[in-house]
């Protein structure tokens, strides 16, 4: 399994010379299975470059974690959607009242976007993501609702004994009297448990988190604690705050590490990073 980060920024695209290394594009991750199955996780602005690498004849499966703007803003610029006869499937969480088509249509329609969802030329199928999991090609996809405002899911993608867990927007520490608590009381735990690679929300410093409790994101220290409790092999910090430039992120991640020897590999999430699992 190959995992590539096409966008690692949270909340708002943040291009500029001070964010070149971590990247300015918002959430988008590509997962490719050994059989060639390709999944795209989220449609932040990073999806535009990814779209240029996908062949016209390929089936594309786009899995949305939720429909906040930074996770769908690149959708209208994802080239496969403009290709007649290209097979595209979009999976995402429904709300309790509206299905995925109705909710995506709010963005992909005037006045926010000039082209309507129904007018896209590709062969598009929308799916309310099944909470009991599903398979695409040889990839097994486990789904769970997680702690973030509005309907939000995390994904775990497994193939041949290796797995990647994707929790880009996640606040498992919200309201917890002690964090991390017992595994059964931690949002997202089952998705992350023992994963070879965990891509996890690390938006805030601890001081910032104290001012933003309930916003749906984690302090970097929470991501580290969550990863340790879940027993992952590698943690990739993700969904970096727009206010954090490269130098700040370097410093915050090292401060969160605190000179400790961690029970997993800590990898700062940078745009363009690629991970080979099970190789």
């Amino acid at each position, binding site marked *: 399994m190959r995992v590539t980060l096409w966008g690692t920024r949270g909340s708002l695209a943040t291009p500029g010379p001070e964010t070149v290394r971590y990247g300015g594009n918002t959430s988008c991750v590509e997962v490719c299975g050994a059989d060639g199955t390709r999944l795209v996780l989220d449609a932040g602005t990073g999806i535009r470059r990814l779209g240029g690498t996908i062949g016209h004849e390929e089936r594309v499966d786009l899995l949305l974690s939720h429909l906040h703007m930074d996770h769908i803003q690149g959708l209208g610029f994802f080239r496969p959607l403009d290709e007649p006869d290209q097979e595209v499937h979009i999976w995402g*969480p*429904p709300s*309790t009242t509206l299905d995925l088509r109705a909710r995506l249509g709010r963005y992909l329609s005037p006045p926010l976007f000039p082209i309507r969802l129904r007018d896209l030329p590709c062969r598009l199928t929308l799916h309310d993501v*099944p*909470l009991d999991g599903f398979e695409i090609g040889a990839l097994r996809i486990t789904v*769970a*609702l*997680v*702690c973030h405002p509005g*309907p939000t899911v995390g994904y775990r993608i497994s193939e041949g004994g290796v797995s990647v867990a994707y929790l880009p927007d996640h606040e498992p520490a*919200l*309201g*917890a*009297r002690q964090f991390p608590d*017992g*595994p*059964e*009381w*931690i*949002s*997202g*735990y*089952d998705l992350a448990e023992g994963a070879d690679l965990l891509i996890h929300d690390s938006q805030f410093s601890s001081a910032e988190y104290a001012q933003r409790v309930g916003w749906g994101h984690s302090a970097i220290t929470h991501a580290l604690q969550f990863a340790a409790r879940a027993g992952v092999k590698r943690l990739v910090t993700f969904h970096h705050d727009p206010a954090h430039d490269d130098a700040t992120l370097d410093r915050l991640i090292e401060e969160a590490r605190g000179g400790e020897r961690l029970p997993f590999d800590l990898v700062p999430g940078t745009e363009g990073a690629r991970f080979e699992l099970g190789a």
Partner: protein
Amino acid sequence: MPQKAIEIILMRQLASYLAMPIMLFDPAGNLLYYNEPAEAILGRRFDETGEMSLEEWYALFELTADNGSTVPLQARPLVIALQKREAAHRAFWLRHADGSRRRVEATAFPLEGQGARHLGAVVIFWEADPA
């Protein structure tokens, strides 16, 4: 032990901050959590007991009506919330094994998650004046 549904986790976290006695049950009626105000009603701390099976829960006290008769299972707010998936409210007496009694009112409501997932029920207790 598998992770609880996110709705159950958030409900527990909310309950832990509220001053009302609150108990959280799974669909089978097992007591998953009760907060500090509820500890006064149960007479034991959650940190000591942890989760409680339906049998353990029923063994804690007897539910009786004002006339002293046992409240039938099907008339109990928790059972209505779990089986009929409806909100229910009722006043009754709790008689502990040591013979002590207290009159309470209980409001129960089902927890229904996305995808038609029945997740359990919440019971909120209110101290009531003796009838």
